[in-house]
């Protein structure tokens, strides 16, 4: 009996000490991690909107580019990020955040469409915990670039895209990643929700 009490006390003390250490470390690094996460979001918005970065990459420079080029708007619950370069430049775009459950954890990113909402300008992911080498490949430019120029409606005019390795080619379909069908299905669902909200926002 005495042994049990000792074991319990030992576990409680060790657990508390470890927890205390981690809490201290977490609160010490919190501001740095928050700043990093914000810089990451800013970079992802700029990349999705395809704003020219001119090789700049430091958080401060990115924040400046963001300030100068991107206007935030609010329609209902949806925050939009609009990039409107001066008229002769045809590269204007509007972006929204998308999020949803992935296979192992949440997936979050940004989707940018052209101002008429007919084509995808770019997608980025800033948070994901998919299987490295399979679903985790969604962050690779080789996968994300497939979406650039993709139509946001099917041939019947219904908004939505398809990510699949099966079926016939269509203007609103891209190839999925082999071995990552569940991740692709979930990403497709989130993107379609985001497309829907942008299309509705326009009407």
């Amino acid at each position, binding site marked *: 009996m005495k042994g049990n009490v000792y074991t319990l006390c*030992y*576990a409680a003390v*060790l657990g508390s000490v470890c927890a205390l250490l981690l809490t201290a*470390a977490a609160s010490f690094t919190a501001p740095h991690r928050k700043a990093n996460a914000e810089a990451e979001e800013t970079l992802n918005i700029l990349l999705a909107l395809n704003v020219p970065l001119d090789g700049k990459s430091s958080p401060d420079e990115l924040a400046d580019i963001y300030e100068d080029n991107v206007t935030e708007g609010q329609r209902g619950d949806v925050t939009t990020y609009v990039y409107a370069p001066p008229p002769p430049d045809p590269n204007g775009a509007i972006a929204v955040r998308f999020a949803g459950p992935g296979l192992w954890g949440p997936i979050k990113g940004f989707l940018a469409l052209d101002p008429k909402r007919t084509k995808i300008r770019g997608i980025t992911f800033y948070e994901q915990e998919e299987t490295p080498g399979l679903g985790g490949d969604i962050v690779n430019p080789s996968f994300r670039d497939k979406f650039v120029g993709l139509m946001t409606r099917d041939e019947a005019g219904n908004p939505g895209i398809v990510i699949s390795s099966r079926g016939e080619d269509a203007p609103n379909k891209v190839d999925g990643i082999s071995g990552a069908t569940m991740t692709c299905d979930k990403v497709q669902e989130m993107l379609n929700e985001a497309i829907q909200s942008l299309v509705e926002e326009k009407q």
Partner: protein
Amino acid sequence: MADSQQLACGPCASQGLCGGKGLLTLKEGAWANNPLAIQMLGICSALAVTNRLENSLVMGGALIFVCVGSNLLVSLLRKVTPHRIRMIAEVAIIATFVILFDQFLKAFYWDMSKQLGPYVGLIITNCIVMGRAEAFALQNPPMLSIVDGIANGVGYAVVLGIIGFFRELLGAGEILGREIPGFSSWYTPNQLMILAPGAFFALGIVIGIFNAIKGPEPEENK
């Protein structure tokens, strides 16, 4: 206790720390019983993060830090830890050090943290760390356990470094992200070395060379 010390430290158990025991422990961990090349532990992370030399070095550094920290703490607590819950206690200690390192990377080396992704967190389940805590730190004094942690961490880091060096050199034609004068200009990078199969080839060759230099295992140990 005396028996296990004999086992862990061999013929030099009677000598002082800096004389035979420490040196032997160092040699044992880093070379003769190298965790990766001889014991075949921690293979998963060695395959996953070695596509760039920088990643390999940071991962090696992480393992040295975790191994030294957990070995020290497990050794300090070895006489008060109840036998029944020693493994869960070891995991708690290891996890604490791993998360500390992960937080540090996320705060100050964000890009590196993104590159290494989940693999820093997965050090918690790395067999090397748990193996050293269980097989060495539980039976040996703190100073010697630190030496053992350094030895095994360095043993792991060196193999990772070698693999990372050749994968980056052949796969990207660069070292530490920089072009090499007189090499990068004419060399066509072989993508295979950056991808997963390249990791298997590189690891296999390194293990082969290690074992060839070390020679066959003596009969009585088999």
